């Protein structure tokens, strides 16, 4: 029985190696170039928003917040018209990494799960992808803040 298990493990390892060899891969370089262009354009758009808002007399902080709002809104609208997923199909990480990707991950389940009701459909599922981001972001920043406090404390003594 034991020997059988070891044989099976070995067979599985060999098979997985073999699968890795025969599986076709998309060109990593081409995908990186697409991600670069897509991500670059979204960030440039952010920079344009910042410039426009500061032009109109906003402080740097407020302009940054308004830029976040604008990008999120734009992404949600594009998600509603099913355009955002097409951008990601082409641009990959280029449209996942910016804040617009986060907004897409909130709006998409909200639209998809509306058929399952306000509370258990939209209410729960709106967090399926964004929930972990919020949880672990807050948790990490809490830990970092705690360490920061301890360091301050140590330095104060």
């Amino acid at each position: 029985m034991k020997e059988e298990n070891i044989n099976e493990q070995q067979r599985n390892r060999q098979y997985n190696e073999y699968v890795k060899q025969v599986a076709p891969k998309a060109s990593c370089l081409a995908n990186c170039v697409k991600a670069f262009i897509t991500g670059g354009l979204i960030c440039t758009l952010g920079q344009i928003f910042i410039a426009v808002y500061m032009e109109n007399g906003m402080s740097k902080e407020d302009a940054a917040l308004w830029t976040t709002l604008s990008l999120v809104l734009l992404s949600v609208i594009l998600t509603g018209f099913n355009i955002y997923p097409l951008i990601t199909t082409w641009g990959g990480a280029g449209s996942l990494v910016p804040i617009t990707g986060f907004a897409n991950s909130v709006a998409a389940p909200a639209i998809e799960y509306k058929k399952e009701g306000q509370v258990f459909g939209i209410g729960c599922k709106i967090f399926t992808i964004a929930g972990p981001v919020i949880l672990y972001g807050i948790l990490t920043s809490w830990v970092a803040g705690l360490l920061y406090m301890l360091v301050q404390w140590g330095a104060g003594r």
Partner: protein
Amino acid sequence: MVKGKQSILFDKAVYIEETACIVGQKEGEGPLGGSFDIVVEDPMFGSKNWEEAESRLQEMAMDKLLSKTQVPREQIRYIFAGDLLGQLIATSFGLKKYDIPVFGLYGACSTMGEAMSLGAITISGGCADNVVAMASSHFASAEKQFRFPLEYGNQRPETSTWTVTGCGAVMLTAQSQPVSIKGITTGKIVDFGVKDSMNMGACMAPAAADLITANFKDLEVDEKYYDRIITGDLGVVGRKILLDLLREKGYDLSSNHMDCGIEIFDAKNQDTKAGGSGCACSAVTLCAYILKNMKNRKWNRVLFIPTGALLSTVSYNEGKSVPGTAHGVILERQA
């Protein structure tokens, strides 16, 4: 008559009397587009949500079958049916209005093979004269259940497949017809430890290879016995692996193997990557393509093998591998 370890050759013949198949728009635009009974452009099939849409698919396929068949409705003893959704909701809501006893089956994408096998056993065993075997899948309901909401952006790898939207149904009967189910080979659950749910071809190919080898051994034949050996939804990646695995065992299928997943879409122009998948992939290809070619005597003996990847989002999140299974149905053209 029981043959070998996992096969049956039926003493009392079972025949395929009529078929019905219905597909979505993308399938209708594919290479087999002209052969389907109905192509529906509305992906919701006139319903309110994706799950209901898939139920509607089953209903439409059943209605179409009832309108084509010579078998009176009250003489249909059982329906063997299944889909991909949790607790088979597409089947239970789709077939409830017919007032016919139903066996609900889950075999992932191999369900059509499972349904035809059990239906044929029932008829051959004298427990029914006419039964329906059917299976459905819907791209959107499957995507929603197994992957992401459709509005969420993601990049599909080259090994991934596209779930076929459709439903295929066949009427099995004891009365003589041109094409018969000569026998079956039932698949084991085969797990080679692949964890990549975006490469289902690699997860299922070992199961298909295992089934084909078992069929050859049980029937004491080899690949030349069949005009075509047709797997369900291995796609281009799974096909390559299958041919390699069988070559190791001394069989060369390169000239007579086909895969429904490769036939149903034009991978280049329809961007379906490795091919089609889902219960409907093998089911509608059987109805629209395989059985037609058998009736025309292009092929006289076919081993039809729907393949299935047995995973759920829970097993995936818990880090389990994706086992595969396959169900072989031996189809023969009567002289």
